[in-house]
């Protein structure tokens, strides 16, 4: 099994359905390579065997027999249908969640994954699940079509606006598995990544009680000052990357999906409704928790709320990071992102 995966460059099979799918994969691709090589080699052999001896050489008329044709057609169709029968049965398995599956709600938007668990817990980009339990995801998109894809589980399902789709899996190996958005969804499509964290039963129970902070594998410096040499600005950078803030906000003054953080702290900001506010600690914190309360003029209402997702320590670290950038140098001249007019599009979709 592992050799097969290595030859096919497949990632490890972390779900209960992965093995049977990979076996079919090996069967189908093996036959494919054999057949294409066989056709090529036969053509090459005929070319050598029946090479032209004289320029005006004549050949006799050879035609197919009905029996030969029928035999070939039946053989090919039979092989294809066999693949389909196996593949369709697996497809039904992949699509049909067991009735006792635990449900997690998935909210996709440009360019992040939000997960809401049955106990009211929420998380961004990291989906934590227990080992050996079927998990059913009920998914919807806030904006355009996304596609929830976990290669390690061999599952994928488009996430549509205005309609719920489902996907299920049961992890059989603990560890982390990347989530990738597989349906093109705009400029930061390739940054719309997350991960599934599969925990053993006891560790999962601990996570349910205490959240990320008590996990052995969790980043150590979650609370300011928790680590001796804790540098709050560095921690802020780590948080900004972990929480994908940098997918929309730049640190160097370049314009992007959201306002840049460079020279933001303490500056006066014009809001969508014409109000002018000073970007102080309170404003920055409120913008993380209620992003749509004070939208900066010229930007779209698209940032999700991080209420409950960011710990107090993480918020403090982010604010500290933004404060450290208040005297950042002017953006590098000449290297600007191409004019990106998503900023000018108002909610509702009509371009200016």
């Amino acid at each position, binding site marked *: 099994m592992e050799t097969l995966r290595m030859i096919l460059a497949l990632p490890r099979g972390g779900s209960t359905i992965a093995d049977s799918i990979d076996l079919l994969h090996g069967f189908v691709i093996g036959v494919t390579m054999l057949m294409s090589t066989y*056709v090529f080699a036969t*053509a090459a052999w*005929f*070319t050598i065997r029946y090479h032209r001896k004289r320029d005006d050489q004549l*050949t006799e*008329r050879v035609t*197919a027999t009905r029996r030969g044709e029928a035999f070939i057609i039946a053989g090919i169709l039979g092989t294809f249908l066999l693949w389909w029968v196996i593949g369709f049965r697996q497809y039904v398995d992949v699509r049909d969640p067991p009735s006792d599956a635990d449900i997690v709600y998935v909210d996709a938007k440009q360019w992040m994954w939000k997960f809401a668990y049955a106990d009211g817990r929420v998380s961004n980009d990291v989906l934590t699940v227990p080992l050996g339990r079927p998990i059913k995801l009920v998914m919807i998109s806030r904006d*355009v079509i996304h596609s929830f*894809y976990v290669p390690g589980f061999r599952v994928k399902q488009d996430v549509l606006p205005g309609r719920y789709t489902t996907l299920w899996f049961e992890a059989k190996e603990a560890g982390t598995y990347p989530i990738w958005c597989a349906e*093109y969804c705009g400029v930061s499509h390739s940054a719309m990544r997350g991960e599934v964290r599969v925990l053993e039963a006891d560790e999962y129970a601990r996570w349910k009680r205490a959240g990320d902070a008590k996990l052995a594998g969790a980043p150590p410096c979650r609370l300011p000052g928790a680590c001796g040499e804790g540098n709050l600005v560095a921690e802020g950078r780590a948080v900004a990357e972990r929480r994908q803030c940098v997918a929309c906000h730049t640190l160097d003054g370049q314009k992007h999906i959201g306002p840049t953080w460079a020279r933001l702290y303490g500056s006066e900001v014009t809001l969508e409704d014409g109000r002018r506010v000073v970007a102080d600690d309170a404003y920055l914190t409120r913008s993380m928790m209620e992003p749509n309360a004070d939208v900066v003029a010229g930007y779209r209402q698209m940032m999700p709320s991080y209420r409950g997702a960011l710990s107090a320590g993480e918020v403090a670290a982010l604010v500290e990071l933004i404060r450290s950038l208040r005297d950042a140098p002017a953006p590098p001249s000449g290297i600007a992102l191409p004019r990106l007019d998503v900023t000018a599009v108002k909610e509702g979709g009509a371009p200016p």
Partner: protein
Amino acid sequence: MTTLPLTHAAPPGAPRSAAHASYLDTETTLRSWLLTTDHKRIGVLYLGTLLATMALGGFFAMAIRLEHLTPDPTVMSAMTYNRMFTLHGVIMVWLFLIPSIPSAFGNFMLPMMLGAKDVAFPRLNLLSWYVFIVGAVLVLLSTFVGGIDTGWTFYPPYSALSPTAVPLALLGVFIVGFSTILTGLNFIVTTHTMRAEGVGWMQMPLFVWSIYATSIIQVLATPVLGMVLLFVVVDNALGWGLFDPSRGGDPVLYQHLFWFYSHPAVYIMVLPGMGVVSEVVATYARKNPYSYKAIAYSSLGIAFVGFLTWGHHMFVAGMSTFDAGAFGVLSMLVAVFSAIKVFNWTWTLKRGAIALKTPLLYIFAFLFLFVFGGMTGVATAAMSLDVHWHDTYFIVAHFHFIMVGGTLTAFLAGLHYWFPKMTGRLYPERLGMLSAALVFAGFFVTFFPQFLLGNAGMPRRYFNYPAEFQVLHVVSTVGSWVLAVGLMSTAIYFLWSLRWGPEAGPNPWGSRSFEWRTASPPPKHNFTRTPPFEIGPYDYTQPLPDEAP
């Protein structure tokens, strides 16, 4: 009804009169080219245009591959990258692959293969070229006013929200569609009404059958594309919300309508290529096709069943499991027709008299790549596998094996095969073989690693990618350079041959097909005497009466 559209007839076997100037020499002014209704000149106009669009699409492809040398931004920004892959797709699909073989070689060869003087509607034929130019210019204009970043599939709601120049590009594609319909209509009517005496349906060269089947798809499917693209235009420009769920629309409906055209469009692209294969194999093997009827009817089978498989693009898009299963079975069926053709071509070689020339070398590349690409397509119709592969590089590799490994390879085979007929000159054979080998090797090194990338889970249309994929991406990029060198050397020796290539003579390959039974380049009205069509296009059991000039 059959007509015999010959200006004057001479007894078979009479020596060719040098007084008949070729279609290139009758008039040489620019005006005579731009206002021509000669199907051969229109074919040449199309060929020149399409080679230019192919070069442009190829440029974007090279830029995309260059960007993927490193996992992080390499030479461009995310937005530029998104525009590049969109333009690459739009140009290659609509401005090159769909019109490529039908509009260039079909226009030039189809009437000659029927023994006709021209197509049924010569002025409509010229109009189709102008319509194509207008559409192409609109598509290219969109690059200068913001580009377009939706991917060639234009999926809403993203395409309805995208701030880029979506309406302009879509209108361009919409207009190009009219050119496709006009050409298809012309070929259907020509095949029905313009066949010369002695050219019955079962005496037509197989290339005509494939173009005929293609034309049926073009005429029936293109209107659906036109409609759905207009819907996106009004969604984007006027905010109608036909596909926007927040206003009661349905984005999945778009996908059904889009693929209802765009899956058959795959056969629009590859069927003419299959026609080229049938011609080239028979000529260089000096042999009748193993089963003429099987090849001819499988073209029609593909055209028909091809309309019933579109749902296999949507196995994970949100469709009922039963529907998905039905589309899976039908997709298996359509592949059987292609498999029938492949076996027939291979067995045509048996007991032939085979000369391995550049076009046949391209056909061998076609056989390997098309079988591999086609069977990976069957593999994705084994539905559980598609759940993993959908929208990954596996799919990218699969359709490039069909589109480039199939259609482009057949296009190059046709270009080499018919170059002497179109220009009256030969190209350097050894350089041709060398370039063909480079193209094949470059192609394989470019796209085979992409199957592995897809297996590993790399999604398509990713600007940045996880670092563990870099090795395969670098191999793929290096392969694209080899491919580019092969294509550029091909371009160079063709340009050289236009002027300095040795005279080809009427029938340098000794083919029996009808287009070779006249001078190269052909006279203005194709034939200067009644072609001896009682000897069929694949009859190599007896010498041609006029074979030795």
